[in-house]
C-alpha cells in the first residue's frame, strides 16, 4: 500500500484498486484501506474527495425498459424457432428481415394499425367502464386529453372535473383529461399557470412540466415552465408539494407512492429546477412571501424590548417558514420595532440591522448570522 503515500486526489480517482474498493468494497479491502488511512491520517481528506468523485461520476446512458427488451427478445426467439422448423436451412444466407426496405415499410404499417387498434380499444373500454380504466402515467393516452392554449393577453381560468382551478397565463398550454380516471390526476403544462387543487388525498395530483414533476394532494401553487427556458420554477402558496425530475431513476415509485418523496416544498418556498446544471434543484423562498395564517390570526408585529429570538419566532410562524438562529446569542438582544406593513425581507432587514446580524436564504430556510449583542 506504500505506493499510495504520495497520491493526489486525481491519482486515486483513476487507480483500479481504489476504484474497486470504492465501487464494490469487501470486508478485506475495507480493512486494508482503513488500516492504511489510520497509518496515514493526513490522506483521509484526499481519500474522501476521491471517493466522492468516483461515486459521483456517471454516464448519461440511454434508457430502455424491461418491457421493450422483452418484446424484442420474444420477437427474435419467435423468428429463430420459426426458421428452425422450416425444411432444412435456406441455401442462401438469410438476410435479416428488417433490412429489406419493403418489409420495413410493411412492418411499420402493421405497427401503426396495431397501435391504432390498441388506442381505439382502450378508449372504447374506458367509455364503457370508467371506474376500471387505468390511466397510464406520462400521458401515453395523449389522444384523450383536452388541450387548452391561452392565445389571449390575459390569464384565463379553467375548471377541471375534480373541482380544481387553473389560471393559465398568456401563451400557456395545458393538457388534461376531460374526466380524471385511475389513481392519479395528471396534467401537462407548458408556460406559466397557477394551480388551486381540490383536496383528494386518495388521488394525488401531478403536473408534468419541462422535465419536472410536481405532486400534490390539495394545495395552491404556481409553475413557470416556459418552452425556451431551461428552468422550471414552482412556488408554493398553501399546503405541501413534492417535486422531482422526470428523469429521476425512481420516478415510477415517486409517482405512485402515497407518501411524498422528492424535494418537499412548503408555503412561501420555491424551487428552481435547471435540467442541464449539476446542481439541478435549488430550493429558496418566493420573491414576496405572504403570511400563511388566516387574517384573524395575523399577529401584531409591534415589539418592545422583545428578545430578537421571539421576534423571529413570531415571523417564522406567520409566514410558515423556518428561521434558524442561535438561541443563546439572540435571546439577549432586545428589539423595539413596528413591523406591520413591511414585506418579509424588509422585516428581516430591519431586525438584522438593529441587532447587528445578517441573514441568508439557504435551502428555503432563513439563516440568521449573528455575533450576539451582549455588551
Amino acid at each position, binding site marked *: 500500500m506504500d505506493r499510495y503515500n504520495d497520491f*493526489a*486526489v*486525481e*491519482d486515486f*480517482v*483513476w487507480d483500479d484498486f481504489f*476504484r474497486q474498493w470504492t465501487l464494490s468494497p*469487501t470486508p478485506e479491502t475495507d480493512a486494508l484501506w482503513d488500516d492504511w488511512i489510520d497509518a496515514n491520517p493526513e490522506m483521509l481528506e484526499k481519500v474522501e*474527495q476521491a471517493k*466522492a*468523485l468516483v*461515486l*459521483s*461520476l*456517471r*454516464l*448519461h*446512458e*440511454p434508457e*430502455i425498459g424491461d418491457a*421493450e*427488451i*422483452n418484446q*424484442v*427478445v420474444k*420477437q*427474435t*426467439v419467435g*423468428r*429463430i*424457432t420459426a426458421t*428452425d422448423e422450416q425444411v432444412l436451412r435456406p441455401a442462401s*444466407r*438469410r438476410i*435479416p428481415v*428488417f*433490412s429489406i426496405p419493403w418489409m420495413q415499410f410493411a412492418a411499420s404499417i402493421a405497427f401503426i394499425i396495431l397501435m391504432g387498434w390498441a388506442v381505439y380499444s382502450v378508449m372504447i373500454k374506458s367509455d364503457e367502464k370508467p371506474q376500471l380504466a387505468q390511466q397510464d402515467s406520462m400521458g401515453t393516452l395523449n389522444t384523450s386529453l383536452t388541450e387548452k392554449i391561452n392565445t389571449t393577453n390575459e390569464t384565463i381560468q379553467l375548471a377541471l372535473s375534480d373541482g380544481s382551478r387553473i389560471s393559465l397565463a398568456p401563451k400557456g398550454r395545458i393538457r388534461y383529461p376531460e374526466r380524471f380516471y385511475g389513481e392519479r390526476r395528471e396534467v401537462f403544462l407548458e408556460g406559466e399557470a397557477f394551480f388551486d387543487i381540490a383536496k383528494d388525498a386518495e388521488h394525488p395530483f401531478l403536473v408534468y412540466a419541462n422535465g419536472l414533476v410536481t405532486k400534490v394532494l390539495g394545495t395552491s401553487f404556481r409553475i413557470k415552465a416556459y418552452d425556451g427556458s431551461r428552468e422550471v420554477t414552482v412556488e408554493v402558496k398553501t399546503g405541501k408539494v413534492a417535486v422531482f425530475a422526470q428523469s429521476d431513476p425512481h420516478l415510477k415509485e415517486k409517482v405512485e407512492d402515497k407518501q411524498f418523496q422528492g424535494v418537499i416544498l412548503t408555503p412561501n418556498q420555491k424551487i428552481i429546477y435547471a435540467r442541464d446544471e*449539476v*446542481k*439541478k434543484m435549488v430550493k429558496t423562498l418566493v420573491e414576496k412571501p405572504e403570511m400563511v395564517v388566516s387574517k384573524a390570526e395575523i399577529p401584531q408585529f409591534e415589539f418592545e424590548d422583545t428578545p430578537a429570538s421571539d421576534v423571529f419566532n413570531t415571523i417564522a410562524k406567520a409566514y410558515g417558514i423556518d428561521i434558524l438562529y442561535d438561541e443563546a446569542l439572540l435571546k439577549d438582544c432586545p428589539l423595539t420595532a413596528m413591523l406591520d406593513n413591511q414585506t418579509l425581507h424588509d422585516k428581516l432587514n430591519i431586525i438584522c440591522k438593529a441587532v447587528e446580524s445578517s441573514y441568508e436564504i439557504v435551502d428555503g430556510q432563513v439563516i440568521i448570522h449573528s455575533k450576539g449583542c451582549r455588551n
Partner: protein
Amino acid sequence: MKSTSPVPEDRVLWQDFLAGEVRAFEKLMSDNFRLLFRYGSKFSKDRELVKDSIQDLFLILWEKRANLNPDAAVKPYLMASLRRLMHRHASSRTWVGNEALQEEDDYFEIEFSVEEEYIAHEATAVRSQQLETLLNALPRRQKEVVYLKFFQELSREQIAEVMAVSPQTVSNLLQIAIRHLKSHWKAESFIFFLLHFLF
C-alpha cells in the same frame, strides 16, 4: 482481484446457446440487451436502428453458432460483434444516399455527468465539474477506452478485442487519456486556486 469459479455462469449459457438451446438464446439475449443497447447507442442516436442491430446480431450468431468459439469471453465478444455490425451497417447504407451516415463511422456519443448527491464539499463540486468537462472533451477513441475500462470494467485484452486494436494500443490510448485528465485537472485547479486567492 476476485477469483470467480473456473466456468462462469455466462460461459455455460454461451455453450448452451452454441448447442442450439432456444432457452439459452432467450436468456443470453435478454441478459445482455441493456448493455448492448447502451453500447450501441454510442454509435447511433437512432433507437430503432440500435434495437434492430442487436436483433440482427443475435440472429447472425444463432446461424453461425456451429463455428463460434465456445471459450469466448461473452460480454466483450458480443460488444465487439455489435460494434462491427453497426459500423458495417453505417458504411453499407451510405451509398443509398441516406443522410450523412458516413460520419457515423467516427461517431462515439457519450456524455459523462456528475451526480450531486455524493458531493459534500464545494471544492469537490468544482473538481467534479472540471472532471466532467475534461472527460466530455476527450477525443473519440480515448473516450471509448475510458468508457470500456472504467464503466464497463473490461480488461486491456477485452478492450483490444472490442475495439479491434492491439492491447498495446489500448494501453497507449488509456495512458494518454488519463495523463490528459490529470494534468489539465491540476492546471485548472491551480488557476481556480489563484482566482480564489486573488479575489
